[in-house]
């Protein structure tokens, strides 16, 4: 009994419950919403949030933050476009673009690990830098700043728009990311060290952990997350743009924090982030079906972020021990 109650009180369960409530609410508002095909295909619209948010969990667990992720998405996207228009095989272009996003992450991580500057300031600077580089690349390539590059080969467009076994491809990417990063975080030595760095940096250093190495890799993973997210978005819109993902920072960080990762570090799960990004995506989709614009939905997302943190900060242990006490009394 005690075990089940503990399971029920876990944050991930609360998120799943919230997701169910959300779906019931929206289907009451609009019966069209409960169409399973629609629900699954709507995931295409927001899978990129999850792809960027899942590796971002690592960064936030170390006690850092990466606000440059939106720029990395744009940089990856425009790199694919520019490499491809200059006659490169599209898959090779994708590979190089993802490598560029990993380098972007390494720049973030390197500066953060080897200087005393806070992660927020560093990634703020690289946010300008990466989005600037993206604009320069796109501007230097005849296309004026915000004009996209389109006309990609069908095989690449199918990457995000196609189906495998009746389900949209991006869904597989999300599931793959969930499994991969959940395994890295909870089953590998590296994952445990990420937690220790987040809980107590000095203790981590004194216990012989290569803290700088851990930090840099966390940011590289976040960069690659942004990169893959950029690939999927480029393929989904079948257009490469420098400003793709410029608005992604708020939902990505909201997904991580709503997923139960503590912004001060040391606590968090990949599964929570994954579920939370579905919660947010579903919310945006549902509100849009209630004919709200994407900016209007940001009101709701903003409130959810604040309320989620408030709920996390509430003294759940007291409530939990109260429930335990009751079940013992019975």
């Amino acid at each position: 009994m005690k075990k089940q109650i503990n399971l029920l009180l876990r944050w991930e369960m609360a998120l799943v419950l919230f997701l169910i409530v959300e779906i019931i609410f929206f289907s009451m508002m609009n019966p069209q919403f409960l169409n399973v095909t629609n629900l699954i295909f709507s995931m295409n619209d927001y899978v990129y949030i999850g792809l960027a948010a899942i590796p971002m969990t690592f960064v936030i667990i170390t006690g850092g933050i990466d606000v440059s992720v939106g720029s990395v998405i744009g940089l990856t996207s425009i790199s694919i476009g520019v490499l491809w228009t200059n006659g490169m095989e599209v898959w090779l272009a994708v590979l190089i673009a993802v490598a560029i996003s990993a380098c972007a992450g390494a720049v973030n991580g390197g500066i953060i690990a080897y200087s005393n500057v806070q992660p927020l300031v560093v990634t703020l600077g690289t946010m300008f830098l990466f989005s600037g580089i993206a604009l320069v690349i796109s501007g230097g390539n005849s296309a004026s700043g915000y004009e996209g590059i389109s006309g990609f080969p069908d095989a690449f467009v199918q990457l995000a728009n196609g189906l495998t076994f009746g389900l949209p491809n991006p869904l597989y990417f999300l599931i793959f990311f969930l499994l991969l990063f959940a395994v890295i975080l909870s089953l590998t030595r590296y994952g445990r060290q990420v937690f220790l760095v987040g809980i107590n940096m000095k203790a981590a250093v004194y216990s012989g952990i290569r803290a700088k190495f851990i930090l840099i890799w966390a940011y590289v993973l976040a960069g690659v997350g942004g990169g893959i997210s950029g690939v999927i978005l480029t393929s989904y819109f079948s257009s490469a743009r420098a400003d793709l993902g410029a608005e992604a920072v708020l939902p990505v960080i909201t997904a991580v924090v709503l997923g139960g990762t503590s912004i001060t570090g040391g606590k968090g799960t990949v599964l929570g982030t994954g579920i939370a990004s579905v919660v947010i995506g579903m919310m945006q989709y549902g509100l849009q079906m209630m004919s709200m614009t994407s900016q209007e939905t940001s009101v709701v997302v903003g409130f959810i972020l604040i309320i989620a943190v408030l709920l996390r900060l509430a003294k759940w242990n007291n409530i939990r021990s109260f429930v335990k006490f009751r079940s013992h009394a019975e």
Partner: protein
Amino acid sequence: MARIMKGREASIVILIIAFIAIVGSINSKFVEGNSLLLLLSSSIILFILAIGQSFVLLTAEIDVSVGSTMGLCAAICGLLLTGGMSVWPVVLIVLLVGAAAGLFNGFGVAYLKIPAIIMTLGTLGILRGLMIITTGGKWIEDIPNFFKKLSTESFLGLPIPIWIGLILVAAAYLMLRLTRFGRYFYAVGDNADGARLIGIPVAKVKMIAFMLSGISASIAAMVFVMNIGFIPNQTGNGMELQVIAAAVVGGVSLNGGLGTVWGAGLGAIFLTAINSSLIYLKIPAYWNNAISGLLLLVIVISNSKFQDYLRNAPFKRTAFVKGGMGKDEKADQSSA
């Protein structure tokens, strides 16, 4: 300690002068005639926002919602003015809206203990959406001429917006420097627990810091309306990051307790100088972000390395400097 503090602002002053000198030597139009006054005018919105942000940063918190606060205030200001309301009630209402946004942030951070970055990120989304809802997604045009004219009218040779900026920075500086309550901001940012123990109302100070940031955003919004004359939907987008960048470049520490408002203001002028110099250097405008980002990184990293050097330099090891070392060690922990 005092010397390091001075060094923080001195470096930005030297940077600005060097930058203007270099750009001026390449293209002399940059330093001729009205160009410098124009530079000051175009930096004034960022300048005002940076003053408000400094209060928040001094208390070791952060406010990323200023851009959207400014957007919402600009929209409300525009709607009320086109609706035919006279100036003073509009000013009052807009100031109240800004203060209310700040109050909301401050309450969440100071009393509900929500981390500032999360709280203000949430507010950013909320206010951005509210702005679109108030304007109905349309741009606001036809701002009455008497309001637009305020930006060109000058007093003692300087345009009104610059006076607003100068008065604000002077008032903020004097308040922080001379009043007891002003010193509280530094105390809270330097050591919140210590401040609480000696009887400083920490939560109240933090809340007021956020309110001042909100109010500065509403003043910036009004300057925006008089300068630009119309209000696009994306007013204030991304402004928050430029403001924080300006404050950091100007020597305000994100760890709290270090920096001055005029340093932050100079940081705002420096960032604007980079932007506007590109025209004179004949560099396409899309280089803007890349150069700003690179400079921001170079400045913060070299500043951090310089502080490290000062800390390790043997001749600095006097009791007086040690007072400042505790701060640096704190910086170590929180940045790590």
